[in-house]
């Protein structure tokens, strides 16, 4: 296998000609993109364009019909995929936070490292407290998700993913369910992460944020990448009419 051959100078995530269908509906029609280590990329596009599906495929939450997705050289599109190995490399944050409602914020963060990585409780708790602090939720450790605002819950979800020490973080429209005031606190947390050198793939509708944080922006429509480029050129001089139309509606 080529797993061992991966070196940090190669793309950390490499997506090649990915096709994905739900029944008769083809949602990804040959998507390719590379993400370098430490890079932040944003995928934007209208609803139903396949952007969420794409990042879910990276994490093997959805399987693909053809093509290749490699994370640090680990091929995702194979029947004998070691899911655990993949999940250790890739963290994911969802639109609806999906915290465990019967666990406190701290317990949510501690659960996976203890159960999956079998790390000792003391060590996990120390790390979890540091992570809660990092997402600026000090003092909320013992609150249940139901007692936290949407933005706070989403930051717990980020801390929960980080506790597994991933190399790549996937963010699936993580601010879409939040009210405008709390959007900012979540975006700040992601910005901190990016500044620390975390590789991030974001699906987002926050254009201002994408422009500010992204190294590279991809615009998808109807299952294909229509246009991509660094934010400086992408927003100023989009060439494709579909991209221009989308941007004119959003900005």
């Amino acid at each position, binding site marked *: 296998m080529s797993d061992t051959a991966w070196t940090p100078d190669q793309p950390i995530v490499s997506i090649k000609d990915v096709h994905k269908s739900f029944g008769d509906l083809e949602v990804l029609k040959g998507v390719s993109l590379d993400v370098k280590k430490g890079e932040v990329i944003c995928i934007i596009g209208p609803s139903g364009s396949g952007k969420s599906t794409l990042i879910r495929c990276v*994490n093997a*939450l959805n399987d693909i019909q053809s093509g290749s997705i490699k994370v640090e050289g680990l091929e995702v599109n194979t029947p004998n995929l070691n*899911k*655990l190995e993949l*999940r*250790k490399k890739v*963290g*994911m944050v*969802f639109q*609806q936070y*999906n*915290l*465990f*409602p*019967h666990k406190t914020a701290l317990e949510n963060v501690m*659960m*996976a490292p203890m*159960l*999956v*990585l079998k790390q000792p409780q003391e060590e996990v708790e120390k790390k979890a407290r540091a992570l809660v602090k990092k997402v600026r939720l000090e003092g909320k450790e013992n*609150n*249940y*998700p*139901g*007692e*936290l605002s949407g933005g706070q819950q989403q930051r717990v*979800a980020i801390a*929960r*993913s980080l506790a*597994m020490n991933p190399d790549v973080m996937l963010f699936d429209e993580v601010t879409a369910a939040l009210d405008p005031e709390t959007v900012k606190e979540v975006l700040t947390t992601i910005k901190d992460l990016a500044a620390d050198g975390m590789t991030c793939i974001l699906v987002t509708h926050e254009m201002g944020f994408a422009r500010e944080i992204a190294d590279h922006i991809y615009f998808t429509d109807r299952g294909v990448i229509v246009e991509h480029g660094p934010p400086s050129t992408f927003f100023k001089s989009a060439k494709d009419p579909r991209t221009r139309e989308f941007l004119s509606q959003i900005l």
Partner: protein
Amino acid sequence: MEAFQEFFRELAQTYPKWNFIYLYDPAQTERVLTGLWTTIKLSVVCVALSVVIGIIGAWLQGSPIKWLRLLVQGYIQFFRNTPPLVQLLFFYFALGQFTPTYAPDGWVEVPIISNVGWAILSLSFFAGAFNVEIFRSGIEAVPDSTKEAADALGMNRLQIYRYVVLPLAFRVSLPSLNNNLVNLVKTTTQAIVIAVPELLYQLVSIYNDYSTAQNACMVLMFLVYIVLVGILVMGMNKWERNMRIPGYGQN
């Protein structure tokens, strides 16, 4: 104590319709107490067994093996669509004839499953059929997205079931379980038809022997079941409160 007994003995003489015989005749007191004790034992054993049956059944219903699911479905249909009274009669008088017998004293052949045994089996499976459905609805109430988040963190299926699905499903199930167990305790009275010496059986026997005690026995019947079921409901409600998660499932 003497005066107390004397009071009720005189009451019975003055008002023959109110013969509280079990309050002054030690032999009758004994019958009431053993009946009560049998009812309590029968209830506790059936409640425990029916909950175990419910959990196992709900687990089997989620099995990938089709005939296992069909088996559980058949079991539920059989026990839910027939009256418990008919089940008790059927189990004891029909099935009871075909069970092996043994002779403890070397003379009299005794079936290996006594009438109490059949009452326990029949009532537990009766309430268990409802418990399977109750637990299944609880399991189905856990959102897929919550399980997906656990999956994305690298937890395996067993861990997801044990640490995420079951704790949440159980909380959802508790109110319905509460109802069903109350019904079960009340249904234990029907074991009278196969001569299980529980409370109803003993009280009916008393007023068959002493017809003036009928009203007094009826009063006691109601009182005992109100108190017995009351204790169960109080316990279950307290349990429900203890299991409640702040900010979850209250809106």
